[in-house]
């Protein structure tokens, strides 16, 4: 099938098998590998992207579902690591292995779009679907608070 959608602000057209998922299309067909495969079942959040601004687990999203819609991945969050969350992530030295962090940042970005100054409780509730095995949670909270302040 041929699917056209907006990816990080640009219109793309991709040829893919009918069972193609958004995750593997992003990663293998479009070579945007910042979005990660962690569980394949929307349990870990490593594959979080924005679909029309809504944080969405790409691993369970069929490619056909994004036709004519808008997808933003970690690569599209900023051109130059300048998103307040990316800056805060460096400032707070959040990542360890780093594998989950695209998902963490994309989930957090959606939070800050809707909630200018989230409380700690709001942050925790919103971020609970994204697992970090290295245990960077306390720094994630700190970085989101820092980014919210900067915005």
């Amino acid at each position, binding site marked *: 099938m041929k699917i056209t959608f907006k990816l990080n602000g640009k219109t793309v057209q991709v040829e893919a098998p009918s069972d193609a998922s958004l995750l593997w299309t992003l990663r293998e067909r479009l070579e945007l590998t910042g979005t990660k495969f962690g569980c394949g079942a929307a349990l870990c959040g490593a594959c979080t992207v924005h679909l029309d601004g809504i944080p969405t687990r790409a691993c369970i999203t069929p490619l056909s579902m994004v036709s004519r819609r808008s997808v933003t991945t970690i690569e599209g969050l900023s051109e130059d690591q300048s998103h307040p969350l990316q800056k805060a992530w*460096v400032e707070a030295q959040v990542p360890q*292995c780093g594998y989950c962090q695209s998902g963490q940042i994309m989930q957090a970005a959606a939070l800050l779009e809707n909630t200018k100054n989230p409380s700690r409780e709001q942050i925790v509730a919103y971020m609970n679907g994204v697992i970090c*095995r290295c245990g960077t949670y*306390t720094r994630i909270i700190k970085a989101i608070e820092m980014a919210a302040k900067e915005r």
Partner: protein
Amino acid sequence: MKALSHTRQALSRRQFLTAAGGITFVITASSLVPRSLFGESPDQPVSGEDKSINAWVHISPDGKITIYNPAAEMGQGSMTALPVLVAEEMDADWSMVQIEYSPIEPSVYGAGGRRGGGRMMTVGSWAVSGYFDNLRHAGAQVRYVLLANAAEKWEVPVESLTTEPGVVVHEASGKRMTYGEIASFARIPDEIPEIPMEKMKSPDRFRLIGKVMPRYDIPAKTDGSAQFAMDVVLPDMVYGVIARAPVNGARPELLNEQDLRKMPGVVDVVLLEYGVGIVTESIETAFSAQNKIQINWTGSPKAEGHNSEADLETYPGLLDRREGRFNRIAENGDAEDGLNTAARTYTFDYRNDYVYHAQMEPLNAVVALSPDGQSADVWAGTQAPDGARSAAARALGLDRSRVNFHPCYLGGGFGRRSMSDYVEEAAILAKAVKKPLKLIWTREDDVQYGAFRPMSLQRMQAGVDQSGNLTAWKHQIVGTGGGLLASGAENPYYTIPNLRIEVLNVDHGVRTKHWRAVGHGPNKYAIEAFIDEIALGEGRDPYAFRRELMKNSPRALKVLDKVAKMSDWDARPREGRARGMAFAERSGSLAGGVCEISVDRESGQIRVHHFWVAIDGGTIVQPDNARAQTEGCIVMGLSSVLTERITFVDGKVQQSNFNDYEILRIADAPESIEVEFIPSTEDPAGLGEAGLPVVGGAVANAFRALTGKRLLHMPFTPDRVLEVLNG
């Protein structure tokens, strides 16, 4: 700042050397006769078979300094910490440093002492401690060469020169020359002297070691550009998945090979000893084909009879009857006599279930055989690059020198990626189809064909004299996992006159493996929970009781006193909360931990509010990263202590993904984790695991203090907590 190796367009190391010019320090370890790489073919010395080469630094005429990192970067930060050691002694300007993976050549880049040449494995929190002398010395030798060249150029005695970061300075004349300028004309002298310890920097002159500085790999981990093996995409690449034996050791008899081969997009079906591989054109096809594989599993593997819950309950009987071969790992005085003559004795059994690594990046590797089949490229995130390369070479039927290995970032390791099974599998499938291939384990594969931290039971027995002094100690460990069981059973920091520690290994035929801190997790839980038990039984404060046991261990006492102070141990926590303390050593580091918890008596959920950790890890090379590692240890430790549990029924793993193997989420992380390091100028110890072993004991002890009840089985799941509370 971005390393070349961060991106897919990374130049190979050989290309880099050809392109870059400048000088690379190639120092033969045997005779310390250096050779300059400048102007020579870069092919020959650095990654070839020459066993006596030591090459850590390349300086370009533009001042850029490349330092070669020999360790895996799996989140523990040694990719930054190791080059810091070199840069410190050579007095490099850190902003000019870029970091590249070193070639995989253990004789050159292995750890161990001043000369190195040991194993090239990133395990056991050894990276910084294992390379400390070697890399500082290499840095000091580079600085010596730079000074000698400047001295010759200026015709002044080398003793009259000093360095500032990246610059050689002649104070008398005010002349200055950057390292890059020197690199443009430098000759490496025929002999580089060994730099004596007293000529190395004293800690008060450190500019980088012990300073808070950002990790090198972090920026690329905020924009998706950090490259994991999973991210390698090659032209015409195909995908491999494998259906592996649900019971370890079972043999597959494939029932529907022809049907599978007829599926659109299926490239090949490959029979393995323990599974069936499918190679496909797309990943989606690979996953759906994997689900359609029909296999009759044959053989009567040992694991088939393994029912973990029932088998764990046979362990006490094995101890009662003293059945099997006990391996004595420590003996001091006469523990039996000590127990027999004690005024009072204590006995408790502590249990723990299997746990799974759950590194966030499922296992995977990419292998591309050259068109003539005579060489191959391999991409993998591995803690054991040398072993992984050899495994791939064996599977491909190539000499390992024909395998070009590309280390990638690891999306978590925790011990699982010190095995090379997934790299070997990728090589087998790639060889079969003669196409570039990416092998992916699904999360379900990763869980169900995991290699787990062993299930075990610890029988603790102790005797005290009339005054309540601990006089006898017997610790027996039963479990499956051989040598993994004993780690952390000893505690040389407690003085106990009569002591025996022994291990009984029971082989259930399942796969076990090092898991962050190895046996220290279960063993320290049992030891520290038991210490509290004795203290409370003798009417003593657990802190005071531990202090007494540590009377001959000033270093341990300092750590314990520090964490007591940090947590304000003597203060009463607020209503509904209690605190617990534990102490543990791991990889040479000493850790004291205190946590504050509450319990929801309706749900049985333990909530850990605060954690305080004091660590003596010797010289702390990267303080903020050391703190991050400790925070991670507490969170991962809590996850294993509160929720994680693999069970077997008839040899089959019962869990499959994060829905039934839950790991700690952000809502359950402590509100605060406070970490302090004891100031020290001793050599560094390991910090990647040091915080983890205190968690089980601290939580169990806090629970005991809060409820008066005992948690004797990890993990402390809500159902177990309720059972204890209502029991």
